[in-house]
């Protein structure tokens, strides 16, 4: 690994995200787009990709930190199933893609599922990590079952919901992008403000408490921030997998475990990665599209393994 400082690396990631974003505006199924297509359609889609990738990676870094679990991802507390359920209800209510209600309900679903997992896990004013993981699984399974029930009752919307769950970035209107941007800013703001406490938490919950960290308040804030970030992502991109799980690990391998720089690095890498994958998803088989969630896994997994082998160090969370 090169001897660049963390700040230099973050600078490089920033440039990479910027370059990918700028280049992606010129990559798409329409070979020679005019200015209006570039500005009104391609640009919003690239922005949605950057925003969704950044949000997912930021949420993943946060969840892995607060739950001290390397397998945690943005959806670990049932967030994605909640979002999918919200989206399914919106579609059934006649609010399709493009309608504001669709994005609002998807975000509400993400929040409700996260809150439900948190409340279910709470015992004696504490929320042990194991309880959280279990309640997340249960909420996920419950929302999943409700979606399947909706499939069975209203078969004709099943396919549309399936596309949402596979993850595919849609062209959002300006209002939706601004809404997602605000959610992202709130979520990342809270996440960065919690950096020091999360670093202390990595020593263990008991130790963190003796060092004066209010671990319960920390968890509550972190989950709220995670839900903000997830809500920002799922509205514009559906429930894209993999980005929120692997990108924070890549950032950790490159930048070390300190939460502040790790999550900033993850946000930049996530934005660049998802935007790149989406550019490929809409172009490779043009005019047909490939679900971007499939590409993120197919391309991301081998890269992560390569990086893990190359770093040749014991994995530290």
């Amino acid at each position, binding site marked *: 690994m090169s001897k660049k400082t963390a700040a230099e690396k973050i600078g490089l990631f920033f440039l990479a995200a910027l370059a990918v974003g700028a280049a992606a505006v010129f990559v*798409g*199924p*329409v070979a020679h*787009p005019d200015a*209006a*297509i570039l500005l*009104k*359609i*391609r640009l*919003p*889609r690239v922005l949605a990709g950057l925003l969704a990738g950044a949000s997912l990676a930021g949420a993943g870094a946060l969840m892995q930190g607060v739950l001290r679990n390397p397998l945690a991802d943005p959806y670990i507390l049932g967030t994605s199933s909640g979002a999918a359920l919200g989206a399914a209800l919106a*579609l*059934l209510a*006649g*609010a*399709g*893609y*493009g*309608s*504001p209600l669709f994005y609002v309900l998807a975000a509400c679903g993400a929040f409700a599922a996260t809150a439900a997992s948190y409340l279910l896990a709470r015992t004696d004013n504490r929320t042990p990590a194991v309880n959280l993981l279990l309640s997340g699984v249960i909420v996920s399974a419950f929302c999943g079952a409700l979606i399947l029930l909706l499939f069975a009752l*209203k*078969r*004709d*919307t*099943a*396919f*549309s*919901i399936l*596309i949402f769950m596979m993850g*595919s970035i*849609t*062209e*959002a*209107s*300006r209002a939706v992008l601004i809404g997602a941007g605000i959610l992202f800013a709130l979520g990342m703001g809270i996440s960065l403000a919690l950096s020091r406490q999360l670093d202390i938490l990595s020593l263990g919950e008991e130790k963190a408490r003796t060092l004066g960290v209010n671990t319960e308040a920390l968890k509550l804030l972190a989950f709220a921030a995670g839900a903000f970030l997830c809500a920002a992502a799922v509205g514009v991109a559906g429930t894209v997998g993999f980005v929120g799980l692997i990108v924070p690990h890549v950032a950790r391998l490159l930048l070390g475990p300190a939460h502040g720089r790790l999550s900033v690095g993850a946000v930049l890498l996530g934005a660049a990665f998802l935007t790149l994958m989406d550019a490929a998803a*809409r172009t490779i*088989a*043009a*005019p*047909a*599209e490939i*679900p971007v969630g499939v590409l993120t896994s197919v391309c991301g997994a081998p890269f992560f393994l390569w990086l893990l082998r190359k770093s040749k160090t014991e994995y530290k969370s």
Partner: protein
Amino acid sequence: MKHITFLLALIAFCVRPVPAAQPAAITAAQPPRRIISLLPSHTEILFALGVTGVIAVSNFCDYPPKKTAALEKAGDYYNPNIEKILSLKPDIVFTGNWKSVPASGRLRRAGINALEIPDADCIAGIYENIRRIGAAAGKSKEAANLVKSLTAKVAAATAKYSAAKPRPRVYIELDAPHWTAGGRSFLNETLENAGGENIFRDLEKPYAQVSWETIVQRNPDVIITLSAAKTNFAALPGANRIAAVRNGRVISSLDKNLLTRPSPRIYLAIEALGQALHEQKNRR
């Protein structure tokens, strides 16, 4: 049978069915008396042939409405209710043919006489299916007559619309967001007969998801959405560049089953589509 048919149609296109071995001979002298149909298009063909021995249909079969509503439901072709089917003691079960769907194998292993007939993927395929189903149900003569009259009705409907000018360029949304039918789909033939031009005729796959920017760039005159989950086209960025959106020609009132099911009502599908594409415009 909406999206599931569609999904399975996709699969069927990936894995082309080979002709299935015919089950134990049922001769015209002894036509089957207890018939179950697991495919809506087969059900429609059976009733169009005047077959009276249908005792059960699939959960998706909804036409003819009065007759199908009164019948027992026996699951569907990808998940047949084997217990129910056995208890009904059918002489023959008409089912689909998809290599990825093990349903007919399950039927056979249960000792049920299952005849696999793939869903037609073109109008000529409907005629072929009518003949095959007619032969197996002891209605060969009726089948020949039905094919003859249907061919004439399809030709009449096609003659009425296919040469109409101007020929609108059409985007079909089968499922939100942006799943459409390509040139190799059943729907494409219906659309062309109805005097429309599919803006995604060049797709390699019969069905695929396409990009919004491509839709905007190809600028359809008419958008036909058959999706139960409706896309709010006007709210999408750049929508005002699409002639169909500007001129209020986003049509969502057509019956998806009628348009996508390879049934003897195909001429009605051409009529409905042709009327939506052309006559509405003339009134304006």
